[in-house]
């Protein structure tokens, strides 16, 4: 018979493992989704702007 502490420990380990696994899966899925979305946004909006304004012609020309 397992004691409460062992239950907690194993449940905790299981949760951590699940979290890690799901995390890995989530990262992969989200990355895939992000890539897809980014591609779609890029198609719609063009490349993502860096947010720098051009004050001087020396930099641009």
């Amino acid at each position, binding site marked *: 018979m397992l004691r409460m502490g062992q239950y907690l420990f*194993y449940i*905790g380990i299981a949760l951590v493992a699940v979290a890690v696994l799901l995390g890995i899966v989530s990262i992969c899925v989200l990355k895939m989704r992000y890539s897809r979305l980014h591609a779609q946004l890029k198609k719609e*909006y*063009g490349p993502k702007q860096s947010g720098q304004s051009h004050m001087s012609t020396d930099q*641009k020309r």
Partner: protein
Amino acid sequence: MPKTVMETYELVKEIGSGGGGVVYLANHLRLNKKVVLKKYTYTGEFQTNRELLRREVDVLKDLRHAYIPQVYDFVTEHGVFYAVMDYIEGESLEKHLKKGERFPQAQVIHWAIQVLQALCYLHSPTHGDSKRGFVHSDIKPANLMLRPNGDICLIDFNIALAIGEKSVIGISEGYASPEYYALSKDAGYGSNMDTFLSSANQQEKEDKTELIEKTELVDKTELLTPIQEVPQTEIMFPNKELAQTELLPPTPIPSPMSRSSSVSSQSSTSTRKFIIPDARSDIYSLGATLYHLLSGHRPAKDATDVVALSAQEFSPQIVEIIMKAMAPNPDLRYQTAQEMLFAFEHLYDNDPRMKRHRRQKKIAATMLAVTFVVGGGFTVGGLVQMEQTQAFLAQEARQGEAAQERAKMALAAIRDSEAAYQEGDIPSAQRYALEALQEENPYWPQAQKALTDALGVYDLKDGLKAHVTVELPSEALKLSISPNGTRIAVLYAYRIVIIDTETGEQLAELSAQPTAMAGFCFLQEDILLYAGEHGISAYDIAHKQEIWRGQAATWVACSADGKRVAGIHAADSQAIVYDSATGVQLQQISFSGRKQNVSARNGILADPENSILALNGDGSVLAVSFEGGGLSLFHVEDQEETILLQNSEFPNFKGGFSGSYFAFSAWNTKDCTFAVTGLHGESKGTSSSSTPFLLCTDEQGIYLAQNNTLVELNPVNGEMTELAHISNDMEVFFKSTNGFTLVGDKHGHYAFFNDHAKLVSEGDREKGCELMAMAGSYAVLASRNTPTVQILKIKQSLEAQVCRYSPDWKHIETRVSADGSTVMFFHPEQFYLISRDGNLLNQTQLPNPEQMYDQQYRRQDGNSWLEVTYQDGLQRAYSAKDGSVLWERQGEKPDESLEEQFETTRWLMKAPLHEAPTVYDKKTGQAVKTLEQDSYLTYVTEVGDYLVTQYLSGQGKPYGLLLNQDCETLAYLPDLCDVIDQALIFDDGIGNVRKTRIYKMDELMKEVQEKGTGGN
């Protein structure tokens, strides 16, 4: 077209015409660089303020931006003003639109960002000597050049040359912000504008806006600074052919904060409105431009009529941005180009899908983080709890180990106690038992039993009880006891040790003759006569000093009156008789060369008891046995010798005086003879046997043992009275002066008989008990096989006496009546009823004992009776008061298959006839324990916290066990016969009924502690 301008710029070709001017492509002759010359010419009634134009050009020359053409110079030749600017390669977006090109949203966004970057630059007050910003005010596809590299360039600032005599503001229909149309219709603008617009064809409306007037570019700083006077510009109707942008007169700034409100001038009768274009106007124009670029058609002139872009065709964000930029109310637009640029630059971030993605990511991350944290928490918590549990278990284990250790030690102590008890070392048995009771342990009940056994509190039978044990340095060889039994002397290894029998304390140690045959005896309680190292000696034990010393002697003897002693040395053939008090030699008796029998061995292993040297009661006659089988009596006074045996075949002798008689036995391996003679050797009787006679004499009698029976011989008439009878052949016996007899066999078994030859107690010594003595209340057992000397004490529990009865009464049970007045002893054949003072009240022979099924003694409501049940069901009751028949009735035949049952508070005990009794839990019905295996459970009584179970052993002896409420044995109750009024009743079977109470363990432990290691 002039060829050169200022001899510097070679005009190459006309490339277009803007509002108020012609644009040439030129070549900088010195720099060999392409430039654009914009020639400003205004005809008609427009006049520009040259100085104002100059000032604007000077400002524009300070603009440096990738998406704004740079102005290099402003020249005048022949009254014509030229502005020199960057040559922007490419075509305007308008031209692309006219070609029917549609631009992808991404591209439009890219351009919008570039325009906004240019506007941010333009609007910011960082240009010129006095820092100020500018508003383009004419943003439209036509003014956006698409370079070959895909970037755009914002052109046509309507400067310099655009500055004519009058200042105008351009209106590009669809692109101009609604505040440009805030001019009142009364001013004519609106109606004229409507007329103009309505008259123009749709295409024209889309392509061109009429230039009415060119207006001043409003300095942003001026926007913030109240301008007292603003040159008024009259509104001219548009010249369709010349202008692209419809210009409106500027408006004064009524207040710094109201940048685009139209204010009617009070000072003028005309109803001109003044418009203050600001950054938001540019934003509107840009929004409209983007609208056109995306949708392909110009937005409605009226901002409120603008149809929103399709959110299906374009991204909702883009639609939202553009529509916000094109909000009719300037306050609802982006307030700065920075804001709009921010919106474009953060399309990705603000996209709902991206937001949703981020939200999902956040949610996922949060959930995972929560799961991880929770899991981590559980893990840590579990670990902590496991650690705590481990620590707790470890502690419990340690405690358990400690408890186990304690239990082990307790068990060892119990074993030691039992062993010590068996060996007769009562103080040690008590001490060990007490040790086992010091701390709580699982063997507590056993420890209690060991203590009660060691204390003997429930052993009320008279008898010899183990008292104290003495350990000698080596095996005992001989022993002797004082007349009252308070002292013993033991010979070991040529040393004689004198011991107090009560305490076991060693009182003295004397050097004896270096032989196992060294003799010694007590003259008095505290005076020992012994064959000392230097001669026969008398030693005062109390004063620890030698009283007198005689000549060397091996054997010694003393008269019964203690007045004379005799000593013989093994090497001598004479005996010397001394006065015991003074040691004065009274007589020297010669043996004519004969010597006492000495073993061929070195004397160590010789049996010192197989020779005779004895003085009679007054010391007047000396009996001596000689080697060679001789035995003689010597009269001390006259040394007259009476030869009893001479040259007999008997090497072994035992004998002594009893009054006027001398008894002896002589034996060899085949024969034995016994004889009694007078003091002069006259024969009184003889007997022969093949087995040796054991003989002992004292002044009270002659005691003879053969095989397993000891008798007392009456020398007068030869009658024998049995004193003791045991199972095995006797090896040794001792008759005390107080009537008790102690016998032992060669197996170490000893038995103690009372003066009626009734066995009182018995015991066993593993190492044997061939050395034995008894006097007063003490007996001592020893063996040549062990250095342990056991001292026993006669115990009589007279204070516990209930009553006495005849030991001849045959009975198997004894009961006390409910009122305690009578005691009944019953047996299937009869019963005896006596009063407490021992008077026989009734003796009844029970009829048909062979038909008897059961006898039960009943006590109820103060009455007591004996209920007898027969096999046929007949029942008869006999009164415990007087033994009379109370009643008789015929009942059902008893069922022999029925088992007896006894109930207590917790338990139900079932006692089948031929099986061990079983204890059942009354609550659960479960069997919890089996009681005594080989005995018959007769009764169970609950007394307070205890249970008293009564049994009949297989040999028919009654006994009891004191149990705790868990049915664990706490004490052995020998001879228990009844329990009444919380008292235990014992019947020793030889005439004594006694009682005691149940002792609590605390008081027993206290008793032992108070006594120290003392005995009973």
